[in-house]
């Protein structure tokens, strides 16, 4: 019996200022699967993640995306988030003066409300946030600082994982979450992701380094080049790429 896909991207074409960036992408992600996306700089990996999350700088020209069976493009970015689409940003932005805790609470409140769950009171939320911080080896002071304000590159990335852990999405798009992490932090972040893996939850992991995939073992690896998926395979494809480079495919 075939499962209903969690995400079904068909022939997706998207452009910015009249320039085509995604040029016919098709991708099916079933519940519980981990897909890795690799590919040269500028090939459209972040664009794909952003289009799925609903960033409006991009114009979807043709194609369709179904998420949990519904047309994803019908939903506003915040609605997609509440439905369970999570994007860990390649370059997380700072929001000065807004404490991480306040931001996380507003976010978790919004998502829980949508799911028909009760708002967490401040003490229970704080407890939960502190536990997750501990798992990610982030100091609790981290929660009091402004969102990403003065965070180091690696701290920003771990903060994204913290948000993911709190929001418990059904589809997590991790855009180069491993870039900028030291070896220990990489392992901690990967553990954070693995702890969330379950038969319902899926991940799309964008990375340049096959090393990450030693920790987060993917079910599929895709190579994106020139706005198209040019090759798909299993875990071993990443190793092969590392050895031979992208020119091997083109």
């Amino acid at each position, binding site marked *: 019996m075939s499962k209903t896909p969690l995400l079904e991207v068909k022939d997706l074409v998207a452009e910015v200022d009249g320039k085509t960036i995604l040029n016919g992408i098709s991708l099916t992600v079933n519940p519980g699967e981990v897909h890795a996306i690799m590919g040269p700089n500028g090939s459209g990996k972040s664009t794909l993640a952003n289009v799925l*999350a*609903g*960033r*409006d*700088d991009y114009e979807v020209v043709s194609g369709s995306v179904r998420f949990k069976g519904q047309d994803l493009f019908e939903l*506003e*970015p*915040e609605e*997609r*988030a*509440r439905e369970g689409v*999570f*994007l860990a*940003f390649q370059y*997380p*932005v*700072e*929001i*000065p*003066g*807004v*404490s991480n805790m*306040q*931001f996380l609470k*507003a*976010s978790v409140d*919004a*998502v829980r409300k*949508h799911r028909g769950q009760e708002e967490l009171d401040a003490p229970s939320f704080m407890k939960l946030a502190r536990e997750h911080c501990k798992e990610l080896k982030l100091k609790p002071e981290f929660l009091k600082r*402004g*969102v990403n304000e003065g965070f180091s590159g690696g701290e920003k990335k771990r903060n994204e994982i913290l*948000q993911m852990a709190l*929001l418990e999405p059904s589809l997590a798009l991790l855009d180069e979450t491993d870039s900028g992490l030291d070896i220990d932090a990489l392992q901690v972040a990967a553990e954070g992701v693995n702890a969330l893996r379950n038969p319902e939850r899926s991940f799309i992991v964008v990375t340049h380094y096959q090393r990450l995939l030693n920790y987060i073992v993917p079910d599929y690896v895709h190579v994106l080049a020139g706005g198209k998926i040019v090759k798909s395979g299993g875990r071993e494809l990443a190793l092969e790429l590392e050895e031979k480079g992208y020119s091997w495919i083109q």
Partner: protein
Amino acid sequence: MSDEIESLIRREYEAGFVTNIESETLPPGLNEDVIRIISAKKNEPEWMLQWRLEAYRKWCDMEAPQWAHLQHPPVDFNAISYYSSPKSKDDAPKSLDEVDPEILETFEKLGIPLHERAKLAGVAVDAVFDSVSIGTTYKDELAKAGVIFCSISEAIKDYPDLIQKYLGSVVPQQDNFYAALNSAVFSDGSFVYIPKNTRCPMELSTYFRINELNTGQFERTLIVADEGSYVSYLEGCTAPMRDENQLHAAVVELVALGDAEIKYSTVQNWYPGDENGKGGIYNFVTKRGVCDGANSKISWTQVETGSAITWKYPSVILRGDNSIGEFYSVALTNGYQQADTGTKMIHLGKNTKSTIVSKGISAGRSQNAYRGLVRISPRAEGARNYTQCDSLLIGDQCGAHTFPYIENKNPDAILEHEATTSKVSDDQLFLCRQRGIDEEKAVSMIVNGFCKEVFKELPMEFAVEAGKLLEVSLEGAVG
């Protein structure tokens, strides 16, 4: 900037209702007779009338200032009525029980219950409706501590010595055009006196409400903190939505004697006009404090979200050695609002210190200017000033301007100045939305974060209020 941020502006002004009560309003126009009538209506002593007339004569020779970064048609001072009071059966109400229930209801709707049972815990309120103070809560409790908190009209009758000594001592009659006008026609306002070595047992607050059409409001506030005393005072204001511009020209004077401290907070939410820039309050206000004695401190905190035009520079004269002046300001403009606001810190005494933190937020088609002066006199050895001026832009049709002036006559003084301009970026908004937070909530969160340093200076009860006010004032700032 995305279209969403550009698309503008439908704000809800919750305080915009009109109270239907009978009132007694002078016909528009200003001359010496009008001043005599105002003074007579208030049963003022002769010296007060003479003081007003003197101010009026000075005003007649003055001209409205043109230097501010503001544009508006000239104000027709003869089209304004200078006195309006609710018509009550007898003369003025003797106690809150005698106040017209419609008026009590008005204040209740604004969140300022005045009657005994519901009055705000821990905050004594003087409520001013159009030109008159209609009552003050917690009078007895304050009297026990020796604190005087009453309307300025009462003070003129009951405490003439204090009034004659301090009225106009910080802002002289001829200080500027609007201050001269106020000195001639001021109707009511609050008077506070804190005796020596007394910590005022509660927050004091005045709430100003303009109701009557075509009426100016010219209130006058005087706060005197005697040696070693402390008081925290909060001022709030609203007005109905009217198509006409209404004039508000207040004067606030603060006097802190040796070792005394005055903390003055304002949450100003006068009607800002509609989305096309029609109507709204012209807010031309002179606020100044003098740190008269050594080790005294005056701190201004203001959150300004209302008024069509704001022209105000709460200032501190640091005369006493080691005295401290502070100015924390959030000025938010949206729609077609214009604000030209800032402060003056005049360092005269030795080792005087001042801190200026100004946060300007401009949205819509508004213009927001910070104008500040730091003056260090030759004898102000060891003076220090820290100024931080931050502007936040929402959308790209608004403007932010800073005009910092420094006059330093003492080479030992240390002055630091920091200024930033930033925008609510699409990236920040997208981050929030990607986390499930809707756009309006996101903008208000970002703006609140930007204002955090100022909000933390407000008394607790009002910090929350101020946050909510920003949220309302920003409604419609993004599509």
